[in-house]
């Protein structure tokens, strides 16, 4: 049975960085079945209307990671996004290059910073010559140990997460979700001998810059869930090293505050995060807040029902490791 066609209005970002000139949006109209992937539509445009339309693509089956782009303002793989729902929701399809990476031409971006962040994670097994791999046979690893990688082996390095990440946008030193998910993959690998060193280093190399917005997990076409793995890295870093960094001290203090009183003691949290000298440095900021919200200077009471909070803590974390 022939499928009903939809009229797809596709507005594509066009720009050649070498040729200069202002970027523009070019409108293309095609008749296509609604399940057609955006990539197929763009290739139809190249074949039938404008062969100069430029994009990266290869496998068309969501395994090579080439065709990530902004589709109606979301970072997605063009090959895995059908046009029908996009048109139903937005009336048209706006195609733009990924964010957080400089433009080269049309939808092709410069991925240098993305790959450099990946390289900074030392993405390879680091082994100890004193503990060599078993001679002539595989390392033993149980299915339960393989489980520990979670979904990180599925990562196709498409950079959709990197494009969606507001922390990357705010601070170029943040490695981004993909690189951190890759780091997690090595930290949990029983063959890797640099777990402690990796956790120690990442604490000062951007781990705590993650905003926990989970936009990376939403953007990931392979369900790698980078934000959850970043959370795991934070927990492992605290468990291994305790509060060595502002980020980890903040997390520890936050958790303690809530456990003790059911609400934040913001003065104390500043002290816990930044120490006495750091807190003095933030006195001006504190004064400004105090003028608007004088109650922050009071020591907060234990909230009613604090026993319930305690029960939640016991339930989730019966033997606290990192915060004692």
């Amino acid at each position, binding site marked *: 049975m022939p499928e009903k066609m939809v009229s797809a209005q596709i507005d594509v970002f066009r720009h*050649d*960085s*070498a*040729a200069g000139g202002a970027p523009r949006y070019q409108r293309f109209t095609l008749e296509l079945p609604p*399940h057609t*992937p955006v990539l197929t539509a763009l*290739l139809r445009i*190249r*074949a039938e209307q404008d*062969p*100069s*339309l*430029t*994009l990266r*693509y*290869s*496998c*068309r*089956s*969501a*395994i*090579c*990671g*080439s065709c990530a782009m902004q589709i109606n303002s979301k970072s997605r793989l063009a090959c*895995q996004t059908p046009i029908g729902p996009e048109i139903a929701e937005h009336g048209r399809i706006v195609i733009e290059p990924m964010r957080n990476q400089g433009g*080269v*031409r049309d939808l*092709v971006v410069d*991925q240098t910073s993305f*790959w450099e962040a990946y*390289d900074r994670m030392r*993405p*390879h*097994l680091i082994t100890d010559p004193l503990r060599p*791999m078993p001679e*002539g*046979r*595989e*390392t*033993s*690893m*149980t*299915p339960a*140990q*393989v489980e520990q*990688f979670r979904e990180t*082996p*599925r990562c*196709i*390095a498409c950079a959709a997460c990197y494009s969606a990440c507001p922390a990357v946008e705010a601070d170029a030193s943040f490695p981004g979700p993909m690189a951190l998910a890759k780091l997690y*993959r090595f930290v949990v*690998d029983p*063959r890797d001998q640099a777990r402690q060193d990796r956790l120690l280093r990442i604490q000062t190399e951007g781990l705590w810059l993650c905003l926990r917005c989970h936009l990376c997990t939403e953007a990931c076409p*392979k369900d790698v869930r980078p934000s959850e793995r970043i959370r795991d890295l934070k927990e492992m870093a605290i468990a291994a090293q305790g509060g060595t960094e502002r980020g980890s001290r903040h997390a520890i203090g936050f958790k303690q505050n809530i456990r003790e009183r059911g609400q934040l003691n913001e003065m104390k949290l500043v002290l816990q995060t930044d120490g006495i000298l750091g807190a003095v440095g933030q006195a001006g900021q504190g004064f400004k807040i105090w003028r608007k919200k004088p109650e922050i200077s009071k020591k907060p009471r234990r909230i009613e029902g604090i026993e319930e909070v305690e029960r939640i803590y016991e339930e989730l974390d019966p033997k606290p490791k990192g915060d004692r």
Partner: protein
Amino acid sequence: MGAGLAGQRAALAAVEARRDVAIISKLHPLRSHSGAAQGGINAAVGKEDSVDTHIYDTVKGSDYLGDQDAIEFFCREAGPTVVEMEHYGTIFSRAEDGSLARRPFGGQGFPRTIYAADRTGLALLQALWERLGTEHFTLYQEWDLTNIVVREGRVQGIVAFDRRTGQFEGIAAKSVIVATGPAGRIYGRTTNAHTCTGDGVAAAYDAGALLKDLEFVQFHPTALLESGILITEGARGEGGILKNVLGERFMGKYAPHVLDLASRDVVSRAIVTEVREGRGFPGDFVHLELMHLGKERIETRLQEICDFCRNFAGVDPVVSPIPIFPAQHYMMGGVGTNIRGETNIAGLYAAGEAACVSIHGANRLGGNSLLETLVFGKQAGLAAAAHAASASAPELNDSDVADAEAPVRRMMSRTDGEDPQAIRTAMQQTMDRYVGIYRTEADLLEGLRQIRAIQKRFEQVRVVDRSNVYNLNLTDALETGHMLELAEVIVVGAFARTESRGAHSRVDYPSRDDAHWMRHTLARKTPEGPNLTYAPVGYTRWEPKERVY
């Protein structure tokens, strides 16, 4: 040239031999098509399995066109190769006892396919790139190859251009390794990525290399209907079954012993026969059923397949059958090499799907191609490194670059002429129609006539995009030219081979003819088209027998 598994493994071997190595690829290495391989990698490593059985299965699978000496070497290297990749960091699926998990694959007497869920290629590609990343080499990323320069009977280097600038450059080299993968996009209906266009194989052919057995084209039995996206043989390895419109498990008629796990050529022909005889579903397809395996097994062992079916075919394999039909999948042929990756040109090597050793002969077994990329990638890298250690300095001149650039400038300056994509589509339609699973003399003659007419059209190809930055219109043109050369070699070889063997099925010559045709086709480029000669098959101890599954 090429940064998939074969190219990377060759580079690693050459770097470890302390040579100055560059990798050139039109894709970032992690985007290579090796990453799309799903099912697994064969190695007879368990106590119950034996290397001899792996050898025998491969010889039989090849329909006795594989070189037995090469196959023996290949299968013996399998265990160490897989262990090495595990030590490099590959995350394989595991058995409860902590060893590497194995699944049964088609045409093999033992479950010896080691896997990483249904993304084994990706797992290997990641681990190898991570391992290679600890070494020093130069990466030319997103460069398009135009020529391999051969003078005085030996390689002098290559000419290529950087997509980012359009700048042509000569890269002098004592050794060049062709590891650019397949040319599946010669066909319209293919499991291959859009970038599988045989660039290195065509450049080697232009430079005088002999292409071996190109007429042997594997059609994978189970590809999604509309997109041609691959559904791994692992799906049948896990217990998936094929059914026709009558609900019959029809493989019983074609392969009574192993049913759905017969060799790929056998299963593909069975599906086409069912459809031709009216037992396909309306729209010409059959069903692959997984439902009986249960949700958990499907979603853990065949996770990517679930996503493919749900995203690209709108079916959920947990509750519905998957509509499938065969699609072009693999080229058994390629640049002819020996087991060291050496070609007929000094300094020129080939490995992986771009090469033909031959271990796959007339039909490749599932799980042998990933193994091939690693085993022979390493051999080619070692041989290339050894050659480079002793060869004198190569000579690449400005005129080599100018000669390579001139035809490109002509394409870009034409004011009329045809778009390369229209020409590519015409080629694909011809190959799908006339050079598919079942072949006849009349069809092949018509196919050849059409391919030559399309080559004529290509002489007037026009690149309308004049930009020097990431000019995909130009890439389209170069790739189409490469594929048209190889398409001609496929058709000419298929026309000449008047027998049926493995994936090459001549309706007019339905039997295998060992007396005349147990030999390799070698094609050399001449101005009149491919000149064919033949070479004997390497034989050790496996007497040709009728191939029954």
